[in-house]
């Protein structure tokens, strides 16, 4: 196995927009990586938005394991860098998402942690762009690589797919050259349609999706730029790159936009690639896996023991992976924020069946994803396995009810 590990996460990247997962032509570079990757076709996030998804990716734990902490990283979570440090691995994090910033406590344990919170950003691009993250990563390589041969773990996160969808013209051109819309108009759509979760016009939602796809094109370009940087530092041959998303994005599939407290596939089914330069042919892995499996996979690659607190299992070696159901949880939110009464939403998938629970109206939904991948036909109560699947979720709901 390779010497260094890089975890590249992309905020709000839907799985189905990637060409290698059946999408259109927006991601030629990411698609090309599958030739040297293990591609997981059924990877799930621990939740449908950043605060709920990242506890799994960075600490192999669920959002509500330590109570309702409003996004703060409680002391009980064991972050990947805290374990890697014990093994002499240098660690760095570079990103631009406030929910995983030092303010919320996610800087714990890293040798180098950059969250961009003191940078000046604009209303239309309220984060540091992927190209700038790449540049900062290159600076970190330049500064630290000559210092010694010890391996490193780098986590980088791109925000560029996230709303407001205000892509540059060159990227929109690649999605739909006939679509003429100014950046001011795009921003108005964000304020008047996305923030209001207004899906009444199918045409407008279709335009929003195109703007989103244009941002996907931009990210694909940034990933290509990042691999060129890897090459220029001679890291392309000895570095494993894990690529995933914290959650997806909704475009009216279930009556909403953006990413609220729902557990449908467009939000919790995420892309997951493990790019390994030593792989001579593509591997497609169809077992159900979770992004909680990422931290133990990283320690496995470094040949270090995982934290006993972690709930996932290593994806590698593939043959040893014991398939089991996956679940996720979040606080119900609609529109822009978590609802004040902190009602929970949960899901659990096993085989082709996926069950949802929403505390707000104490409702259950069950879907057979093989027959109904769009989760339109609720078969809860009609299927004899409902009870079995409910039993998987009920103990999780009861954690806070005494």
């Amino acid at each position: 196995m390779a010497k260094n590990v890089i975890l590249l996460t992309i905020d709000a990247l839907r799985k189905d927009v990637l060409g290698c997962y059946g999408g259109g032509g927006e991601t030629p570079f990411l698609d090309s990586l599958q030739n040297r990757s293990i591609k997981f076709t059924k990877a799930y996030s621990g939740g449908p938005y950043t605060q709920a998804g990242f506890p799994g990716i960075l600490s192999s734990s669920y959002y509500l394991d330590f109570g309702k902490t409003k996004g703060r990283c409680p002391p009980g979570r064991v972050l990947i860098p805290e374990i890697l440090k014990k093994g002499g691995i240098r660690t760095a994090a570079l990103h631009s998402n406030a929910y995983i910033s030092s303010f919320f406590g996610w800087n714990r344990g890293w040798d180098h942690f950059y969250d961009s919170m003191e940078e000046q950003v604009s209303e239309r691009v309220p984060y540091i762009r992927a190209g700038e993250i790449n540049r900062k990563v290159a600076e970190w390589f330049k500064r630290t690589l000559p210092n010694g041969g010890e391996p490193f773990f780098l986590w980088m996160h791109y925000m560029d797919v996230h709303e407001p969808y205000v892509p540059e013209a060159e990227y929109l051109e690649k999605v739909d050259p006939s679509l003429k819309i100014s950046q001011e108009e795009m921003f108005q759509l964000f304020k008047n349609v996305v923030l209001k979760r207004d899906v009444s016009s199918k045409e407008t939602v279709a335009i929003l999706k195109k703007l989103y796809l244009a941002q996907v094109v931009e990210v694909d370009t940034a990933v290509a730029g990042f691999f060129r940087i890897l090459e220029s530092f001679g890291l392309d041959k000895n570095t494993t790159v894990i690529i995933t998303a914290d959650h997806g994005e909704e475009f009216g599939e279930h009556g909403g936009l953006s990413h609220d407290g729902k557990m449908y596939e467009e939000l919790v089914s995420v892309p997951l690639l493990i790019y390994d330069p030593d792989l001579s042919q593509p591997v497609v892995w169809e077992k159900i896996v979770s992004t909680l499996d990422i931290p133990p996979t990283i320690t496995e690659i470094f040949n270090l023991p995982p934290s006993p607190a972690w709930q996932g299992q290593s994806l590698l070696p593939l043959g040893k992976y014991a398939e089991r159901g996956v679940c996720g949880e979040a606080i119900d939110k609609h529109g822009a924020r978590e609802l004040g009464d902190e009602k929970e939403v949960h899901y659990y998938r096993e085989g082709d069946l996926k069950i949802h629970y929403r505390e707000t109206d104490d409702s259950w939904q069950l879907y057979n994803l093989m027959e109904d991948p769009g989760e339109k036909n609720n078969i809860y109560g009609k299927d004899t396995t409902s009870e079995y699947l409910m039993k998987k979720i009920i103990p999780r709901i009861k954690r806070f009810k005494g």
Partner: protein
Amino acid sequence: MSKQESLSQERVRELENYIHISKNIIREAYRQFDPKDIRLVWSGHKDSTLTLWIWKETCREYGFTLPKAVTLDEGDPFQEVEDFLARISREWKIDLEVAKNEDVLKACNYTLNADVEVKSLNKRNQEELARIGFEGLERFPFEAESFIGNHLMKSVALNTYLEENNVKIIVQGLRWDEQPVRSDDPYFEEVEAQPLQPAQVRIRPILHISERSLWDIYHHYKLPHVSLYAEGYRSLGVKTTTKKMSDLPAWEQDLENTAERAGRRQDKEAAMARLRALGYM
């Protein structure tokens, strides 16, 4: 290392070496620039005061002219800091100028938390608000270290001063270990011109000096500092939003394992502003 104990020979040599590195950066600055084009940004806090002292010592050793210094009046000062600036600029013969956003202070009648009507502000301040994402805002309460206050009272005040005085080179007392965001900063940085911000060169001579080394230098060379550090303040901002983290003097606190800027406010403001812009608030 506390104030009372004396430092080992080896440690003193280390500190001398750190100062030597800083002096070399300052000498490089004189090779490249005319001192009349340079301003030392001096808050009176520990980092910029150390920078000023090393700069002054370099001038004494090499016969350079000391540039002017500029301090920011953000409208919410500690009296102790104001007194310190007045006393030290006299004792060290510093030509100190003040940069402030008078327009905002007038609009709130020089009163903290008083409302500022955006339309009563000048065009520049209105444009600056739009630039940081507050287009269409009608009023805001005046605070020096809110997201808006930080921009108008710090960035805009300094940029306006630099433009009016045609200054293109500033000296900043930043340190790499102060906060993670600083760990990428170079000693000399050319910043390209942006809308409302002229091109600048930023010189940062003490980047490599850690918080621990800084206090050891203060004590070894008996340098003056604002009394607030002895009372437990570890990092100073404006008065209303800076808190003591402990009653121990700054140098006796656990510098290595706790955050230097924990008593400061703007990190939270920055995170909240980002979330607002992403549609979460």
